[in-house]
């Protein structure tokens, strides 16, 4: 597994043999790449601290009349906090439901070969590809018929169409890495397949469940299309929709936009950096198995 492949101590032999010139080239390349990767985010943070009058000039000074005015305005005079709460509620429900619904399926397709197995795998692969464009119109019409437009359930339902197959797919990858000898031991002790799953495998698979849930959460959290189409009242906006209001057709409040972006990006980035190793493992699980 990727997460266990620690930096190899065996690598010492190659460091000795790298010439100083090569070493400098290596570091320069990585520094250049890091600058490209960090600059937009760093500039966002710096811009959010500038007053509006400075933002709307072509100034390249990194720091210019620093102020927290944008932040106080975002938190005090806009619905930012409502939108953030909406986003959290919708994403959380999506993530929990997604994992609950898909866990047993992930286990079944990892362990059993049954009639219909290939159709299920095929369905999971195809539904992951379903872009918004195919389902958004019919789902919109159905939700309009049920009177759920501008209600959170409509968004949760729309998000489940992509998170459920994705979670099942990810969890199959995770269950594949749990040794089947554990299942056999459970079976020898007289557990049913459900009992084996529930008592033995599920507790072992908690990290896998957490990764799938987290992935569903950030997918829902950053979704734009359904949220823009379904949420029509500004008390129901999610963050992605709310933020576009700051830079609409007629006015562009870059100060508000940058300050709220920082408020969203920092917690998101911190959590993300803590779990990213597991995330990559989850997404490519099954592929990296030796």
């Amino acid at each position, binding site marked *: 597994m990727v997460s266990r492949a620690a930096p190899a101590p065996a690598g010492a032999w190659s460091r000795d043999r790298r010439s100083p010139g090569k070493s400098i080239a290596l570091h320069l390349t990585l520094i250049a790449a890091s600058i490209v*990767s*960090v600059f*937009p985010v760093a*500039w966002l943070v710096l811009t959010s601290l500038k007053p509006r009058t400075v933002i709307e000039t072509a100034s390249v000074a990194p720091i210019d009349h620093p102020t927290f005015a944008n932040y106080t305005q975002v938190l005090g005079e806009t619905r930012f906090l409502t939108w953030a709460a909406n986003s959290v509620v919708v994403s959380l429900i999506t993530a929990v439901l997604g994992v609950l619904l898909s866990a047993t399926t992930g286990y079944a397709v990892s362990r059993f070969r049954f009639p219909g197995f290939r159709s299920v795998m095929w369905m999971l*692969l195809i*539904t992951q590809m379903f*872009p918004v*464009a195919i*389902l958004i119109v019919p789902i919109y019409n159905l939700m309009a018929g049920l009177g759920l437009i501008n209600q959170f359930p409509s968004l949760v339902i729309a998000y489940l169409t992509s998170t459920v197959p994705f979670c099942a797919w990810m969890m199959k990858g995770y269950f594949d890495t749990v040794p089947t000898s554990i299942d056999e031991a459970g079976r020898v002790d007289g557990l049913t397949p459900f009992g084996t799953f529930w008592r033995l495998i599920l507790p072992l698979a908690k990290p896998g469940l957490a990764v799938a849930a987290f992935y569903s959460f950030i997918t829902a959290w950053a979704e734009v299309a359904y949220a823009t189409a379904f949420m029509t009242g500004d008390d129901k906006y999610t963050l992605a929709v709310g933020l576009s209001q700051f830079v609409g057709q007629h006015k562009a409040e870059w100060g508000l936009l940058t300050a709220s972006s920082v408020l969203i990006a920092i917690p*998101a980035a911190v959590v993300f950096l803590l779990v990213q190793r597991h995330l990559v493992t989850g997404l490519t699980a099954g592929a990296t198995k030796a």
Partner: protein
Amino acid sequence: MTADVVATRRAAPRSGARRLLSRHWYAWAMIAPVVIVMLVLVGYPLVRGVYLSLTDATEGNMGRTIGMNVIPSTYEFVGLKNYADILTSSEFLGRLTWTVVWTVVCVALHVSIGLGLAMLLNRPMRLRSLYRILLVLPWAVPAFVSAFIWRYLLNGEFGVVNAMLRAAGFAGISWLDDPFWAKVSVIACNVWLGVPFMMLALLGGLQAIPRELHEAAEVDGATPWQRFRHITLPGLRPVSSTVVLLGTIWTFNQFPVIFLLTKGGPGGATEILVTYAYRQAFEGIRNYSGSAAWGMVILALLVVMATVYRRALRQQGEAW
């Protein structure tokens, strides 16, 4: 697998259907939640989408409820007219070409830059974990936030990119208002977003290649290129086939970057199939039937893609 073996022994020899049921009922019960949810949430809307795509439904003739009054739908069945309109329109080829260019260029850049950085990071060196964190940052920021960041950076008047160009003595470029540069901009933004995932995934793949293989090849006198070509690339194949598929799907469906950065403009220059179908359904006079038909055309393209991919997997011996 094991479970099947146990189950087979337990199953009394009975007639076909019964035996199947007693042998596989638990597997079927376990997949039931997902199958039911998918049938209700995806299957039913999909069928309805197919139906809508065969009608002339728009905002005007769609049934709706205003207060207590129920206004019935008045749209009619028009057969394949919407599809004929799409396939004969000049819009279709243009959108399709740009979507393919966008997907291929983005994925190619994601994979090549990601692989390059992964190979650099796979060496023992100082500050490795710091570089890794800095390079992953673009993936950590939610995509819609990144799209907004880039919209500000590339702003023609006061964007920092133009400010730096001017400071260096060049003329500014109207990044988001010129059809060509707008395409460059959306690709640049999406490459920036997508490289970290590829880098991490391929790094994982590189670390899974046994070191001894490289050492043995070096002892045998293989050049660095030969080692890359005959050890690194084949060793990465399981990971790279997965991430290329994921990357292709994500890029093909990359809604936020296009929608929030350029809104598909200028003049539709950066509009990919997904954003185009969306705009049909939710902007101006809402053309539900036309959008549904575009959706089905996109679905057909994706199914073709998935079939090709599955065939490729099978040739590599992954059997399902």
